[in-house]
């Protein structure tokens, strides 16, 4: 099971210990990770494949899927642009207050999603700061799609930035400085020098951002109003079906999200595999990937 080792004696764990730790780790991971995953798909298909497909194609579920895709389509590009700008500012320049800025970017990670949602409720809700102003002009933000977009933007702000900052810092500024001295403009430097050197980190950050944007539950739960067909995203739809005792349908929608998660994992493994064989200059991407993963999703 464990390959023969060339390490000197005394540096290897004894065989019995290896077996024990391996068995214990496998048991732990299997129970907490594999079993829930298998159970999910088993429950989704518990009423047959036809029912599974029918629940996915029902009108309300379809609008939930559309809404989830819409929210992700707005939040991910905007936060990617933010991530690029923030990473550029933090990694390529020296200025006072850098730690504070990075901490501020990290803030949405640490805050509970329900608290995040309540912040927007207190801002745009009827009793909120802008409540009466918005009501007078008949503009709906909370309990409508704009509110969903805003809170999802809040919780996904750090992803691309936190992924890119270590990568950009590791690549340093020499390449860009060389480009500038050779006469390139700022934009040219950015497009042709910086961006390609961080492309895997960027892709990785975008994938994580997307996974979180589509899967966000707590924050959108606060501001959505749960109006079926209008303000239910996929996770909210799962909850609604569950509360309506339509378990198999809830699992069906949940299985879509689980498949999204599996695809995210596959892409991550693929990206790590790609960068593993590349020359040392790409090592920063792995550093960024490791650093980014540990920050992937704080509270949902």
């Amino acid at each position, binding site marked *: 099971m464990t390959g023969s080792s060339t390490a000197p004696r005394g*540096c290897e764990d004894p065989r019995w210990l290896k077996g024990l730790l391996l068995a214990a780790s496998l048991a732990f991971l299997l129970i907490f*990770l594999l079993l829930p995953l298998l159970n999910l798909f088993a429950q989704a298909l518990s009423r047959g494949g036809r029912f599974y497909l029918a629940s996915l194609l029902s009108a309300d579920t379809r609008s939930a899927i559309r809404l989830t895709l819409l929210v992700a389509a707005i939040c991910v590009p905007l936060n990617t642009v933010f991530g690029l700008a923030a990473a*550029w500012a933090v990694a390529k320049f020296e200025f006072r207050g850098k730690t504070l800025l990075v901490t501020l970017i990290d803030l949405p990670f640490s805050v509970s*999603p329900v608290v995040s949602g309540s912040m927007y409720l207190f801002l745009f809700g009827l009793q909120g700061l802008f409540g009466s102003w918005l009501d007078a002009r008949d503009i709906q933000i909370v309990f409508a799609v704009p509110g969903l977009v805003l809170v999802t933007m809040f919780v996904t702000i750090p992803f691309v930035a936190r992924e890119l900052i270590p990568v950009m810092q590791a690549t340093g500024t020499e390449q860009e400085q060389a480009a500038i001295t050779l006469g390139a403009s700022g934009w040219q430097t950015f497009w042709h020098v910086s961006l390609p050197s961080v492309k895997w980190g960027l892709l990785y950050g975008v994938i994580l951002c997307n996974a979180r944007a589509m899967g966000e539950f707590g924050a959108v739960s606060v501001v959505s109003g749960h109006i079926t067909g209008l303000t239910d995203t996929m996770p909210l739809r799962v909850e609604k079906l569950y509360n309506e005792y339509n378990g198999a349908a809830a699992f069906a929608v949940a299985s879509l999200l689980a498949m999204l998660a599996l695809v995210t994992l596959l892409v991550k493994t693929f990206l790590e595999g790609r960068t593993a064989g590349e020359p040392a200059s790409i090592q920063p991407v792995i550093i960024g990937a490791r650093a980014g993963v540990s920050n992937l999703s704080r509270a949902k």
Partner: protein
Amino acid sequence: MRSKIRMTVVMAAKKYNVLPGFNLTMGYTLTWLSLIVLIPIGALVLKACSLSGSEFWRLATTGRALAAYRLTFGASLVAALANAFFGTMVAWVLVRYRFPGKRWLDALVDFPFALPTAVAGLTLSSLFAANGWLGRWLGPWGIHGAFTPLGVVIALIFVGLPFVVRTLQPVMENLEPDIEEAAATLGASRLRTVSHILLPTLLPTILTGFALAFARAVGEYGSVVFVSGNLPYKTEIAPVLIMMRLEEYNYAGATAIALVLLVSAFVLLAIINWLELWAGRFQN
């Protein structure tokens, strides 16, 4: 004349930023950050300030709120400890041992990161329900995973699982084998090497992973809300209580508890930053 010389000296001493685009990127970053993050936080703080001190205290420390804090922080602590223990073990196995399927297991560790919490909660609650795959075996033993604090702990272990593992893996991979070899040549038993050399070196990182898992668990909502049953005073976590207050339009009550959670999030963030600095010094 003197001021000109002073200015020149100051400019020479200051670090010059050579690359263009600072003002643009910094300006955009600050604007976006303010609009999306800072102003909403300000709204919450403003709302909290509209309460008088004693009213705030009363709302933040009702019996139900205190029970919710106890459950939130207590369950998070237990879950983070479990994750620290098992996570260290898993990281060790993944870094040091070779076995078939290791790459898949390694990828699987990230599953709680990528999975939406609502989905996690749904499947965990069905697993531990009375007729679930695990519930039917554990029920006769009196172990109930659903609608109990135990269920909350289980959900929190799930969401925090990757943190310790992922924080430890790079550090374990970078451990120099020389130290262990030196200890072995000097006659130390394997146990002594591990307990006196390896574990102390890894301790700051383990603590960092523990703190990350703890912070994650404290704020968790989606998975717990499915598993716990949300019984007030028994299995209601603080975020769920905030949600209840919001649904009752008791915004003052919600604000008080939200502020408590916000402040604890800041404190945890500071602790984590400090721990990462400390661990960083150990690694260098």
